[in-house]
């Protein structure tokens, strides 16, 4: 009897089993991996491009359907990210989900327009677009970039973006630029935000550059995927104002303590035989020291010390730096000087041209103020930064020579 009662009592609970309003099967969802934004036909509309991943590519279970492409690309006109997905559903059979979006590709045209900040606000309101989505600025239309970007080895788009972004931010040729950081810097109303700069159409290459003195689209290369990630788009107050090349991006990242850069291989002029270059691995083990001496109505001085160590990787000139104390000193001084020269040039540009800094240095002046109104009145962008005296000092703490003691001597080999 009790059992029957219990059973009858439990019947209503079956209703709960069917009642999940939010139940969606994996099969019924279309995962958008890359989102593109271009200028639309109207004044305040945009063209949204969705790259939808095909989960069957590259997996063992996809055996039968190997003819399907890795992704589907669709562009629709719309007002914001979410409503445009409904329009896109006119031809996409599944529910479009932005939860797994990795990148937001913005065409340079949109990034330079006043509408960009408003567009980004719509992105932050929805829970679907995450704060870790990376903002990428493409030289051409975002649709063209997404369409032309055809990685040959990593065909699954989500893996491609994940690996590509991870590696290129490690080398520092592009900055890490997620939505979260965009808002921190833009709403903080000081400092410049750097976003990855990219292109998939190579127009004219630059032939006299060294390894990182390029912007995307200038690298002389043959073969491979046409898409290049190089340099950064500079945003001031939510609007793009300029493009920095890979080298300046790296410098900005070195001097900014909030971003990391792991792998910085680059070449420097050989101080003895000036036709040659010395290659080395620059590494920054301790944070950049930024000391700001701020006094009201007096010129602010900013003293920056960048401690770094340097490992020599190649000396094509075969000058015996490792053996000779004097030569070592000379090399050390020359590298420090060359870095300081480049840094000073970038700082001067930031002060005169941008009127703000790409290094997030406004952080170091904040402790001078007790409250936000005081801090905002002092005005970093307009008053403090452009007039400040900035002294940059690169200090090499260690110079290492890898696993070779000395190079072979040219005259001995060829006698």
């Amino acid at each position, binding site marked *: 009897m009790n059992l029957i009662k219990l059973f009858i009592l439990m019947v209503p609970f079956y209703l709960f089993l069917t009642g999940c*309003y939010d139940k969606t099967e994996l099969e019924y969802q279309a995962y958008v991996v890359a989102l593109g934004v271009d200028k639309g036909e109207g004044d305040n509309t945009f063209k949204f491009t969705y790259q939808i991943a095909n989960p069957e590519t590259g997996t063992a279970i996809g055996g039968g359907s190997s003819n399907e492409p890795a992704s589907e690309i669709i562009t629709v006109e719309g007002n914001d990210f979410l409503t445009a997905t409904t329009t896109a559903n006119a031809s996409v059979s599944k529910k479009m989900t932005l939860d797994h979006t990795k990148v937001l590709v913005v065409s340079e045209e949109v990034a330079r327009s006043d509408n960009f900040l408003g567009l980004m606000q719509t992105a*932050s309101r929805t829970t679907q677009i*995450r704060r870790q989505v990376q903002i990428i600025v493409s030289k051409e239309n975002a649709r063209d970039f997404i369409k032309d970007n055809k990685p040959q080895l990593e065909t699954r788009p989500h893996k491609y973006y*994940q690996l590509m972004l991870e590696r290129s931010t490690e080398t520092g040729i592009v900055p890490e630029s997620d939505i*979260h950081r965009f808002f921190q810097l833009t709403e903080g109303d000081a400092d410049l935000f750097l976003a990855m700069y990219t292109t998939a159409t190579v127009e004219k290459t630059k032939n006299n550059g060294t390894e990182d003195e390029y912007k995307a689209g200038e690298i002389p290369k043959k073969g491979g995927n046409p898409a290049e990630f190089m340099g950064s788009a500079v945003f001031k107050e939510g609007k793009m104002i300029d493009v920095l090349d890979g080298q300046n991006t790296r410098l900005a990242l070195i001097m900014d303590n909030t971003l990391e850069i792991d792998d910085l291989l680059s070449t420097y002029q050989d101080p003895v035989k000036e036709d040659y270059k010395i290659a080395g691995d620059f590494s920054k083990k301790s944070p950049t020291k930024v000391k700001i001496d701020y006094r009201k109505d007096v010129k602010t001085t900013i003293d920056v010390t960048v401690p770094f160590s340097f490992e020599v990787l190649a000396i094509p000139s075969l000058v015996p730096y490792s053996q000779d104390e004097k030569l070592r000193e000379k090399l050390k001084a020359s590298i420090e000087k060359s870095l300081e020269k480049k840094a000073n040039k970038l700082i001067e540009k930031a002060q005169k041209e941008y009127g703000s800094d790409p290094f997030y240095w406004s952080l170091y002046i*904040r*402790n001078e103020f007790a*409250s*936000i109104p005081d801090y905002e009145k002092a005005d970093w962008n307009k008053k403090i930064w452009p007039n400040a005296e900035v002294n940059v000092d690169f200090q090499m703490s260690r110079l290492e020579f890898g696993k070779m003691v000395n190079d072979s001597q040219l005259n001995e080999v060829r006698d």
Partner: protein
Amino acid sequence: MKPDKTLKTREMFAIVALFIGVKLSDTTATLYSQKVQNGFWLSVVVSLIIALPSFFILLHLLKLFKDKNLVELLEILLGKFIGKVVGFTIFLTSFGLLVLDSRNYVEEVKLLYFPESPTTSLYFIFIIVCILTAKRGLESIGSTSWIVLPFIKISMFLLAFLILKEIVWLRIFPIFGNGLDVVLTEGINKASIFSEFILLTIAYTSFRDTKFFRRGSYIGSSVVSLELVFFFLLYALVFDYNSIEKVAYPYHEVTQYVNLGNFFTNVETFFMVFWLSAAFLRFIIYLYLVAMVFGAVFNIKEHESLLLPLGLLTVSSGLLVENTVINELVYREKLLMYSTPLYVLLPYLLWIIKRLRRDLK
């Protein structure tokens, strides 16, 4: 000693840690940050400095009178009638806060995890679970809290650990946010966020020995205070001053931001499970205590039978508010502001009366 009661220090600690501790993951942070911006963690310190001594004084008084709960204490010190009136006022404000706060939690769950489900059904399911569990009595609530506490705290601290690499310490400056005066006034106005400490004392006599209640309260309140300040500081460091006031649910925003390495992305559902159980327990405790106050004021011995009507009343009044922004920033803020004097000053008042009475005698 009451051998038939099982509640001890650790259950009390767990109840305090969940009942008050969940505040670090709801909209309380948003409420503070609206005016103070990145100095809002200091406002919490101010609130705690104001709210905790009242609680401790009340504990001291309860110790003197032995075996009396909050309402009985009020009746002894203020006289039967005034005592009941004050007790009823406490019931009204706590119930009001329960209604507004539960709506908040339901909206939070809906917005983040169940966008298609209607608020009404979510709210009903939420409260029904709370009623059914609360009906099991304070003993079960206490031991359930103790069982789930480690999981909830570990998940929260895992989150704190994962977000550590995203924080920028210098964002702590300007230290006072929008100014020292704002920090202080906001801290004082919102002290009643911690009024729940006072509400807890209605359960004073439900423990095996009242000393367990006191010990649990002291340990619980100090741990919870540290935890709240730590997390609020973390939010300030992650979001910085102009963004923090715009973020409605900082805890969930953080869970969406972090990854467990490259492989485990979109891990917010993992944190949601623990957060949800914490939220359930918070409202189970809340509902139970409110029912206890009501029972004590109107001399209803079977206060557990009040859970159902009070719970359903919570849903129907919670649904009256139009949307969560109004709910949080208008009604909850106003109610908190007006009830602060009641909760902060009442224990002092009682203490003074106690002194006067002894002197008179």
